[in-house]
């Protein structure tokens, strides 16, 4: 849910339910790396509430678009992490046949 002003779309607070520091802190990092962002931060209003508020203030672009771009960027980063990790695992297995043996034992 988005809380912001009707006339000014450059500053908004996004209230996301069923999320916590895991997503909010990562998004906060990515938002901070965006030159369009003037301010961003997040808070968990109450530890018993299962939600986070993410505040985004921009230098002119709509806050919603900037947040969406950041989430998209985070997804691209994750995909890259996954790809790099999988290649590293395959490579490690090729270079360390003992690791392969352990895996083969598991299959028996």
């Amino acid at each position: 849910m988005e809380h912001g002003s009707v006339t000014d779309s450059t500053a908004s607070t996004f209230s996301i339910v069923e999320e916590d520091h895991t997503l909010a802190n990562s998004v906060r990092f990515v938002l901070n790396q965006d030159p369009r962002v003037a301010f961003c931060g997040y808070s968990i209003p109450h530890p018993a509430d299962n939600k986070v508020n993410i505040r985004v203030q921009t230098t002119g672009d709509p806050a919603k678009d900037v947040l969406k771009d950041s989430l998209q960027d985070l997804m691209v980063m994750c995909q890259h992490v996954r790809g790099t990790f999988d290649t590293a695992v395959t490579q490690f297995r090729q270079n360390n046949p003992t690791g392969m043996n352990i895996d083969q034992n598991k299959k028996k």
Partner: protein
Amino acid sequence: SKSSKDTDDDHEPKQQEKKLPEHLEVQRTRVVCKADAPVNTEGFQYASAFSAMGIDNSVSAEKFCKNFKVEISRLTEDDMEFDMIGIDASIANAFRRILIAELPTMAIEKVLMVDNTSVIADEVLLHRLGLIPLDADPRHFEYMSENDVPNERNTIVYKLHVSCKKGSPWLTVKSGDLEWLPEGSRLPLASPAQSRDKQKTYTSFSRSQNDILEKPLGVKFKDITIARLGPGQAIELEVHAVKGMGKVHAKWSPVATAWYRMFPEVVFRKEIKGDNAEKLVKKCPVNVFDIEDLGNGEKRAVVARPRACTLCRECVMGPSREQVELRRVRDHFIFTIESTGGLPPEALFTEAVRILEEKCERVISELS
């Protein structure tokens, strides 16, 4: 958009030529551990922090993809260690949090107690049963919600029936005594009206789990002590395992633990020679330093194994305090995952990254 990209590429090398002065670069990329407390813990997160100097501090997705590296140093059946280089703590921490709390696994949730004459109380026994790691791939199962009937897709049934004969010595009940029931529960539901039907049980499996799964299910470790039975005592029960997440109860956490530490870096401000070098080498409990022979009797301390550093800070206290600086590299994490057995550690990490992607996707679609 293509033309704008080209111009971006033209500008990039120019920006990289400009470098931050060394003291700022250290502040940006290192946490310095002083004897009493670390300094520069915050770093510079703001993208335009150095724009006045013409230096770009942003980490765009492209830049990230160019610099990110993974180096695996250990990978076994149930534990792994790898280095993640070029990633921020917030994202590394997201992976860690997901590994611990948001990856689904199977764990014992319900126990149907028929008989327990052992000295261990029912509720204590149940708690112990719940924490037993099961050798079941959670990806083959579905969540069971409140109104769902236990079936072959959401429940795994095990039974435990052990007794200690009178006159025999004490018997130790181990997790290996749990026997998997692929056909579902064998305990009849107490409803006398259904005598003509097949006797109803606590689960309604439409087919055997043997037909669905590639390999038989069991427990990961067969030697976990559950209880001890004296002569004449017995335990008879049936357990139902369901899919769940670590944030509900730690028994569903797929990792014994998952943690990371920042890469330690030890730097000499001045050369340490002779007796002082010997003293420094002796002082370090994990042997980070070595002695290098310079010839003609001269000796010098060198940093040989920075990775072993536990940050005890012994070297930044006492006489060597002026010469040694302890740092940690801000974007280099030594990540360790210990799996409890449901999935191998490398699969756990891949799943964790995928879950973060799904979270992003969910919020994007909610915003649209």
